[in-house]
């Protein structure tokens, strides 16, 4: 989600996030019910058409869909061995279409749009749930993933430099301590930026 968005002005980019999410869910459900290879083939052509409409560069699309092909290289022969080539083909087609559609969603939808969409979804439950707080929580979660990843990477480097690669404790303790410090600092920044207004 973070950093996958490919800016654009296509119909798919401009479509409301919630509509895209509903259509994605429906499409995955329908694809799961299709039982003929030719039907999945037609769907694959349709999905490729959607990528063309969204004008997503081939490289960006490949980065999202490519990894699933490596899984299929192993999974398809195994499936074929136990259940036949038709079943293996159906499994591969369904998986490929689902992953491609999910990739299309993330490539054409900003994090902001996703957060706002979830806030809108939660608004009817405003009596019980503060939708703005939940939106902020989701945003902070997304923000903290690379932050914690950076902390882990720095601690691993420091561990290597001090020759303590094998120790799990030497990894966990500084990561937790530094993450807590970072959380404290982010809390201070939120207050400075008027969160408690």
């Amino acid at each position, binding site marked *: 989600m*973070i*950093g996958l*968005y490919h*800016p654009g002005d296509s119909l798919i980019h401009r479509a409301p996030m919630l509509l895209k999410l509903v259509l994605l869910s429906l499409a995955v459900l329908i694809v799961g019910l299709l039982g003929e290879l030719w039907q999945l083939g037609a769907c694959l052509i349709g999905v490729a058409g959607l990528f063309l409409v969204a004008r997503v560069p081939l490289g960006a699309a490949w980065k999202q869909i490519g990894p699933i092909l490596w899984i299929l290289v192993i999974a398809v022969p195994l499936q074929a061995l136990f259940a036949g080539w038709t079943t293996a083909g159906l499994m591969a087609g369904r998986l490929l279409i689902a992953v491609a559609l999910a990739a299309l969603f993330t490539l054409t939808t*900003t*994090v*902001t749009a996703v*957060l706002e969409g979830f806030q809108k979804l939660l608004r009817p439950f405003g009596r019980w749930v503060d939708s703005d707080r939940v939106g902020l929580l989701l*945003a*902070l979660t*997304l*923000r903290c993933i*690379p*932050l914690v990843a*950076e902390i882990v990477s720095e601690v691993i480097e420091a561990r290597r430099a001090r020759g303590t690669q094998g120790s799990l404790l030497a990894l966990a303790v500084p990561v937790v301590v530094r993450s807590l410090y*970072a959380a404290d*600092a*982010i809390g*201070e*920044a*939120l*207050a*400075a*930026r*008027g*969160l*408690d*207004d």
Partner: protein
Amino acid sequence: MSTIDFDGVSHAFGERMVLRDIRLTLTEQRIGIVGANGSGKSTLVRLINGLIKPDTGTVSVGGLDVARNAKAVRRQVGFIFTNPDNQIVMPTVAEDVAFTLRRRGLTPLEITTRTQAALLRFGLDQHADHPAHRLSGGQKQLLALAAVLVAEPDIVVADEPTTLLDARNARRITELLLGLSQQVIVVTHQLELLAAFDRVIVIEDGRVVADDAPDFALGAYRELLA
């Protein structure tokens, strides 16, 4: 310029006294604060927008007691932290700038317009939808500055904003801070940055030990370090 007033302010973290009976009235446009690590300078500036409340004494900004009116004061005071990674709270660049405005009841159009203008001003418009964590250190500090200034505060407080930056980015941030029309209060270890300031305050062991024009105050600070 707003008047920032410290009246008999003391503060301790546990047993350790960090500030002792500070009495200052700040009215100048550019004020620098220097001192050794642990001298109390960061605590002093955090008192200005109520991030820390004094144990004794009062801090007021434009006549408003910060402890009692933190919400109103924070709308006047923008704060820039040393490490921009801790200040950036949203996943993408534009979203982080817009975050400050969203909490001020502006219309979506106003938020978008002001966000775009701020990004353009700081040369970040090409990165609007990029993940904030992929920016360089200098760009992150520019983003932190943009996110603060988009709210048009009267006072900008910066706690060692150039410490983590290379010389070129440090110079750029310094020039931006010096060019602001707002009242600017900067805590720094980079003494050359303060030559163009109106007033420099030296803090040592929680006390103000020098408070003068840059030449005199920095002279006193160098003597202290010798």
